[in-house]
């Protein structure tokens, strides 16, 4: 049973990972926190699930739609809460993006109701028995897509001119601008990418849990925040490892202790890390290459 629980934890961590990476991209590029990213994930997931159930298209089509919706919503949030908000007042964009999140939640509950929306299963006939644990078809899809997206993001950031530009802006936006990097377009791309990751995370989480709640947004944001604090602001590797760690901790706490202790233990861990290593496990002190 422990092996199965460890697998459940890794799966949970994989879904956390995507949205935390999206969060980290924005932190890297702008040194700002987009507090509407959780709601972006929720909205994308609700619409993705709706497309799947109403039009009966294959899962991959609705998944692609959810990522596009996520990208679009994140760009909209960028224009509303970041683009025209002065950099001299960093808290203004935080509050503004929090407000955007509230508006997104209210819009979804108004349009589709406050109930949890079911997400149809995929590859329901598939079940791999790997001895110590079993993997369902849906879990396989989640792992594959999450891994592909994480690896794809890594390759994009490391091996493409736009990825290099994102890393350059993340490192020093002023210097990048002076060297001819189109900073605003790079930031816009960063927001779009973070939205794509959030959209993917939203629908994959819905698939893992079989349902999506319109009130999941803020919880998702909070979890992503815990992950990037634990992993280190702006660190891709730190974000991935922290997401997997938190997924494991939450799962094992529920399995062996109590569901009511689940968040408490994570908060205590984050508190300890903040005291001992405020920059996070893989934070800024880990070096420029580690950062986005």
């Amino acid at each position, binding site marked *: *049973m422990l092996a*199965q*629980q460890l697998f*459940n*934890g890794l*799966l*949970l961590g994989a879904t956390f990972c995507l949205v935390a990476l999206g969060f980290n991209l924005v932190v890297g590029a702008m040194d700002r926190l987009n507090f509407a990213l959780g709601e972006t994930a929720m909205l994308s997931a609700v619409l993705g699930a709706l497309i799947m159930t109403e039009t009966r298209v294959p899962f991959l089509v609705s998944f692609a739609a959810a990522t596009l919706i996520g990208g679009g919503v994140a760009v909209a949030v960028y224009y509303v809460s970041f683009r025209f908000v002065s950099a001299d007042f960093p808290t203004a964009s935080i509050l503004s993006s929090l407000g955007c999140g509230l508006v997104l939640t209210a819009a979804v509950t108004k349009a589709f109701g*406050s*109930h*949890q929306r*079911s997400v149809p*299963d995929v590859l*329901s006939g598939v*079940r791999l028995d790997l001895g110590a644990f*079993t993997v*369902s078809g*849906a879990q396989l899809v989640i792992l594959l897509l999450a891994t592909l997206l994480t690896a794809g993001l890594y390759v994009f950031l490391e091996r493409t001119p736009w990825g290099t530009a994102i890393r350059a802006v993340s490192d020093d936006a002023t210097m990048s601008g002076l060297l001819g990097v189109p900073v605003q377009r790079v930031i816009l791309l960063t927001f779009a990418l973070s939205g794509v990751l959030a959209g993917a995370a939203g629908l994959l*989480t819905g698939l*893992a*849990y*079989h*349902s*999506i*709640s319109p*009130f*999941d947004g803020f919880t998702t944001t909070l979890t992503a925040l815990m992950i990037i604090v634990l992993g280190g602001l702006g660190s891709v590797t730190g974000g991935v490892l922290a997401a997997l760690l938190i997924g494991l901790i*939450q*799962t*094992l706490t*529920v*399995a062996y202790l*109590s*569901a*009511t202790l*689940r968040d408490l233990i994570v908060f205590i861990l984050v508190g300890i890390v903040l005291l001992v290593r405020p920059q996070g496990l893989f934070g800024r002190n880990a070096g420029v290459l580690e950062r986005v």
Partner: protein
Amino acid sequence: MIRTGTAGRVAVGLTAASLALAACGGEGSGSGDGSATLKIGLVTSSAGPFASNAKTMEAGAEYAVKLLNEAGGVKGAKLELVKVDSQNKPATTATLIPQLAAKQKVLAIVGPVDSAGCEVACSTANKLKVPIVSPGAARPGVLKNSRPYGFTIAQPDADNSTPVLTKIIQSRKLKRAAIISDEANATTKAQADLFRSVFASAGVQVVKSVTFKSGDSSFASQVTSVAGAKPDVLALAAGPDDAGRIAREARSQRQTFALLGTGSLQSGGAAYVAAGGEATEGTLAAAQYDPHSETPAAKALLEKAQAATGQTDISLNFAYAFDAVHMIAKAVEEKGVKGGGDDVAKGRVAIQESLNAVQNYQGMADATTFKDGIAQRPQLQAVVKDGKFVIDKSAG
């Protein structure tokens, strides 16, 4: 200077507007004449594990008021539902009840639908001497601090569900059980205690107890733990939405153990099936309400409600709320209660006395008799079949 002046003008404007509203009577339609509107409070909850039950309760109360008003009201006076949303917060509930009593001057209150909400609302209403009828609170001792003004149409799970659950255990020869509950929620905790008590007395070994938090999305970890203990049955001490998602996770992990619920699960049956889909098929539960009752009075009301709502199954909370409004209306009619002015306090006493004397009231939910404020209900067995809870009449 300019700021002060503007603020001053705004303040004067707001004060004038408030005075004008007050002069017009504001909220009040209870001006003291005999044909004043008869106000009934309705405490709903848009959040929490029993939000879907509250929604059906609201629909039932609204339908009852609509029917009564279409028939000319009660002795010529129209009924009005004054709805408030507790959002599943005890502090909000404790504020809303005095508001309904003092500001809205309601004659009686219907709701909340759940036991945790009822404990707060009913004891507060009792202190204020306002009759309050819950169409769903079923935890043992739920009216402990709420008598003589508190009532519940749902019989407590312990009294109603125990014999039915025992019978299910014996007929299915269940030996090993697991229980899933939200230990932070008083209602689901009481359900878990009930299961433990039933299992203990029936000689069933509880091989695993797992917890969740109401509203959780993922139940993978809990179901994996339960599966490892290899139970014959999983007892669902959960609100209907959570229970549905637990069922879905269990079946997606290819677990074949039986799913068992108390009467509360059947009362939120539509939400349970909506959340769990096909995974809920075969779920067994105790029940105290038959949506397809053959009793003449209930049958006629159910068929009419089915036609009006377009639903083939009228849910328990809908029927109980419908009956609660009708019982209050009947008390108003019998005692000649008036809706406005100083008559409200006397009216509340009269309604309380009338409700305490209810014997064999024939309504949408069959016969109701109040015994110390608690309705005595039939003991039935339900099973999910073809996407809905049906009463298993073969179970006797």
